[in-house]
């Protein structure tokens, strides 16, 4: 009999506690993220597909087309095309093709990039029905407004200087 009465009152009290919990949350602000209209800023550690870094000084990439990323890629999803241009030191990148359908995001390309030209992008909104949509030209992606910056001697040479400077400093010190 005492269990019967206990069940009644403790049960009833627990119901009231539950209702208090929900009514408190009723008046709290909502936490919904209206996804298509707004989206979260990805955290710095997020690994999207790789992308070329835009050097703020030169306004273009730092790639020297050495091909280390291509060689180190276990999935063989990177293809680099470059050419030699008169008057410019080193090779000039003409195409950086990333086949993201094969990429496993291991990060070997980023690890092995000597001039530090690669980074993980924060891109996570990738969806398509066509395979071709996942084969990016990272050079075009870096310069979407037009063909990759013209290849005159100045910008490339500047970036070449930038590359040499730290080396010289290292030597002097």
């Amino acid at each position: 009999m005492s269990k019967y009465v206990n069940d009644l009152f403790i049960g009833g009290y627990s119901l009231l506690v539950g209702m208090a919990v929900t009514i408190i949350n009723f008046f709290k602000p909502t936490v919904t993220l209206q996804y298509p209209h707004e989206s979260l800023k990805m955290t710095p550690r997020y690994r999207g597909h790789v992308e070329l870094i835009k050097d703020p000084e030169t306004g273009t990439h730092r790639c020297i087309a050495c091909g280390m990323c291509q060689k180190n890629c276990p999935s063989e999803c990177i293809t680099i095309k470059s050419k030699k241009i008169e008057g410019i030191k080193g090779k000039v990148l003409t195409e950086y093709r990333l086949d993201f359908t094969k990429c496993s995001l291991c990060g070997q390309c980023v690890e092995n990039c000597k001039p530090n030209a690669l980074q993980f992008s924060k891109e996570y909104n990738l969806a398509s029905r066509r395979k071709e949509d996942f084969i990016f030209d990272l050079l075009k992606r870096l310069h979407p407004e037009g063909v990759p910056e013209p290849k005159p001697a100045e910008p490339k040479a500047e970036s070449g200087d930038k590359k040499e400077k730290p080396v010289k400093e290292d030597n002097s010190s």
Partner: protein
Amino acid sequence: MEEFLRIITYIVCISAFVGANLAWLGWVERKGAGRLQRRTALKEVGPFGLLQPLADGLKLMSKQLHVPRDADRPLYMLAPVIAMVPMIMTFVVIPFNEGLVPRDFNMGLLVIFAFAALSVLALLLGGWASRNKYALISASRAVSQNIAYEIPMLLTAITVVMATGTMNLTEIVNQQAGTIIKWNFLRLDNSILMPVSFLIFFVCSVAETNRAPFDLGEAESELIAGFHTEYSGMGFGLFMMAEYGYILIGCCFTTILFLGGWHCPFGFYPGIHWFLIKTYFLIWVIVWIRWTFPRVTVWGLLNLSWMYLIPAALFNLILTGAFLKVF
């Protein structure tokens, strides 16, 4: 002629009132569920998602009315109608305000119980005629549940009838005229257990409508959708609307019997607005309850009725009789 016009006007107005409520109670439910879970819920269709019921209705009406091959066709088609029609019929005796009642007659309370009891028949027919094992299990559950909860509901209603001495709903409300202490759920001079009586009645009206946490009839995780598993399009829509209709009836009825109908708690400006405020508050409480508690088990459901509600209601009935005799 005047009588004829009066009837037509009431038919149109009640159909409009009920129809609008059925559509937008769904909105209230979804919006309330969202807020209680700290979501925004509907917001895309119209301001605050207010046009969502229209979009839903259009979608349901454009769908094919599919009848399963082995179904009992006439009964299958009849069940949603039986769910819907008695629900609208009950509004004939609901007094919204002094004199604002389509048909004011002495057996109002009985009429509501008589028609509301038909909802079980609709569930049973729908579940039976679908020829689907889940629908059949659901129908048998719904029947046992409705029988279990009809008893305490009637017993508490009888205490009110004993206290007021009438079955005329307008008369019942008029006897509660005045401030909140004159309302039936606080009339401790009629029976010291009147608040308990109110609670029992409210719990039973939630259970009667097959709402969560008592929605064993359509327990999604066990029975797909229960008795309306096989219904598509507006067949399902009618069952859905009937459910909201019975919530509306239950809340109107509770307001009339226990919360003083159209009377103001502080004694001034009685009117239809107070009736609607109380009714919608109760509806909101039902939504609140639904999104707070998990579904009870069959055992727990029947136990609550037979072990707690019915003894309490019976005891309350006897106590009310004693109080009325003594005072």
